[in-house]
């Protein structure tokens, strides 16, 4: 969705970091350190090539970051109360689903789950047109990201989970496209996006920001 004007930078690079881990973590390090208790949940312990689970964890964390992005976006839109009609209804329904996705990833990743980044949606949750435009971009991007990462998952159980979410994201994409007034499904084949492509798009939004600096080492000057 390059036509959606994402034009800023990811300040603390949360998504980029997750993506880099998804791409560069050594598969061989899995048994030594990476999975721990998560291995059984992912079903990778029973896999013949069990040493490939670390990349699964990194990919699931990459997906989790995208789910954080979406769930925070819809939750904020609902809390703002500035949407109307079908868009407001869609934000409520899709937001509930995205929060469920986040919880599921948290449950399976346990202590390996990346923390939720800070977000600044720059007013897109308070404007009907901007909301729908951004929602289309998020959902399309999410579908393409799952499609890009699913073939890279080693554990069948993780692949099954990714596919079960991928189809839900595709429905969301069609719904948001319909509400925004663009064709929900015009192509015969969808293309995946690599982690680098997804990261580049999300980075350009600057929706992921650094946490505010609210704590400091400094002598107080309060009245005492």
């Amino acid at each position: 969705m390059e036509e959606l004007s994402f034009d800023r930078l990811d300040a603390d690079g949360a998504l980029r970091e997750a993506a880099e881990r998804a791409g560069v973590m050594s598969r061989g390090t899995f048994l030594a350190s990476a999975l721990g208790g998560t291995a059984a949940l992912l079903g990778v312990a029973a896999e013949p090539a069990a040493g490939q689970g670390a990349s699964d964890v990194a990919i699931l964390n990459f997906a989790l970051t995208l789910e954080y992005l979406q769930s925070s976006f819809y939750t904020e839109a609902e809390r703002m109360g500035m949407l109307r009609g079908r868009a407001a209804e869609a934000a409520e329904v899709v937001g509930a689903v995205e929060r469920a996705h986040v919880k599921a990833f948290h449950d399976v990743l346990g202590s390996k789950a990346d923390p939720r980044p800070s977000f600044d949606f720059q007013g897109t949750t308070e404007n009907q047109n901007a909301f729908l435009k951004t929602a289309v971009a998020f959902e399309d991007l999410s579908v393409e990201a799952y499609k890009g990462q699913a073939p890279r998952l080693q554990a069948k159980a993780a692949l099954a989970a990714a596919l079960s979410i991928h189809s839900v994201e595709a429905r969301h994409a069609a719904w948001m496209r319909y509400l925004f007034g663009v064709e929900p499904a015009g192509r015969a084949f969808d293309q995946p996006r690599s982690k680098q492509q997804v990261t580049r798009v999300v980075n350009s939004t600057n929706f992921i920001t650094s946490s505010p600096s609210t704590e400091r080492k400094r002598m107080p000057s309060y009245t005492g």
Partner: protein
Amino acid sequence: MSRVGVGRTGRALVTLVGAGVLGFAAMLLWPAPESAPRLGGLRAPPAPALDVPAPTRLERDPDLSMWSVVNRAATALTGPGAGAALARVHTRTPEGTDNLVLVKRRARDARGRVWVEARLPVLPNGTTGWLPRDALGGYRTVRTHMIVDLRRATAVLTRGGRRVFRARVGVGLPQWPTPRGRFYIRNKLVRYRSSFYGPLAFGTSARSPVLTDWPDGGFVGIHGTDRPDLLPGQVSHGCIRMRNSDIVRLGRLMPVGTPLTIR
């Protein structure tokens, strides 16, 4: 009568054959309960690694408060996009932390621009004003609330409406009263060298109405003390003092952006 008998037998035969065909079809189509190879070499699908819970709608949360950092300096107005100028709101606090405001509500002006009504750290205490949405950063939420009771000299922190902290405190002397009203926690100062302020200090948006020439604006803080023997009671220049063990505990419980009610 015999035709009726033959008919019954025939229907029974058809029913049996039909059941057999359906059963065979079900064997082909129904997933096998175990992972043994089935017809065509297909196995049952693996169980997904994720157990996605049922989606739950967002419930109205009366304990939720929202705050935002000031990304660019702006003038707060008395109305959304209109009215008199109330105060200039800056991006940094006097302590050098990011400035933040407590968000109350939003509205559009005549041109459709979004404005945010926010509680401001200015005198007179309790001032709220409208800031352009694009001057603020992302919204953040807290479910905590600090309530200071001046008469009882107590500080109580709630989270989600449940009390998680209570301490006896020192408050302002009659000549330097702690202001009553609704405020919020602006920042947290740590690792400084001052026994007077104790090990940790929270900055608030409340300001002394009398010590207006105090350095950095006379903001009221919540901090520790080197004179715990004076607590509780009216002992301070307006700040809320508590025992060092209490302020350290509060430091773990109270996030910046927490609304503060002083009554």
